[in-house]
């Protein structure tokens, strides 16, 4: 799959998951802005990574502000923000990426040649500005009403 089709599929999968499961209308920004610049504020980020293998191997990732996670978890689970615990937040971030990755593969992998791994949570200490610069691969930049996110794919 060429890069343009791959990124188009990722845009479609990400919008679909965030809007259907988290009630978050999103705008995908067409820009070459780096991740460091995109997340230029003082906010802490968390994320998830999800490996895949098949005709090619690599991983998907999702990055979002830590402050946004409580809200999307509350939306996702349909419970009040005050009742959300850390485990639920991590699980929601992982499941979000699981749905994005799975949905993306389902859009182009009709033969089921790819297999997904198990999503892993990325703590905010592992997403400092310096480390963001080291993230390889292609990313799409996503904006909700109040937050900035990014989703990407790294082919090994």
């Amino acid at each position, binding site marked *: 799959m060429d890069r343009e089709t791959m990124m188009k599929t990722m845009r479609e999968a990400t919008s679909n998951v965030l809007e259907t*499961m988290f009630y978050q209308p999103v705008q995908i920004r067409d820009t070459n802005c780096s991740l460091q610049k995109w997340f230029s504020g003082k906010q802490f980020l968390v994320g998830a990574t999800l490996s895949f293998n098949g005709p090619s191997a690599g991983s998907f990732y999702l990055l979002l502000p830590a402050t946004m996670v409580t809200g999307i978890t509350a939306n996702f689970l349909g419970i009040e923000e005050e009742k959300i615990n850390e485990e639920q937040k991590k699980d929601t971030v992982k499941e979000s990426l*699981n749905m994005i990755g799975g949905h993306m*593969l389902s859009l182009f992998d009709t033969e*089921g040649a790819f297999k*997904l791994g*198990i999503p892993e949570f990325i703590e905010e200490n592992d997403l400092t500005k310096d480390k963001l610069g080291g993230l390889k691969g292609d990313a799409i930049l996503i904006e909700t009403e109040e937050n900035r996110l990014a989703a990407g794919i790294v082919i090994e």
Partner: protein
Amino acid sequence: MAFNVLIVDDSSSMRAIVRKIIKVSGFNIGELLEAADGKEAIKVLMDKWVDLVLTDINMPNMNGLELISEMKKDEMLKLIPVVMVTTEGSEKRIQESMELGASGYIKKPFLPEEIKRTLSAIMGEDEDGQRDYDEDDEGSDF
């Protein structure tokens, strides 16, 4: 008659969502049971009466496809309908699930209506808990 449903997913959030949708669906639900993978699901199935299994595919220890295969080896468990609720939506994966004996397939992300529709199709009830029946059955001894 109330139906017992087993939800199998390694994501506790996803289990909570499916549980919530089923709870408010209006169906006559008995126990809502949970398991984090296929192995746990088999333990629950050996211990409790279950009328329907909703399972993810991509899980550690024992995945959803392996769970169906295990269930099909057992005389009692093979009769329980299994619906896949999963991000893995390729035609091949759907076909593979159906060939193993899955009764339905719901792709994540899903709308609550899709879960309700599937429950209705499998349980033969409408959302008010009224069992659908063939007019020819009226007055039978059952």
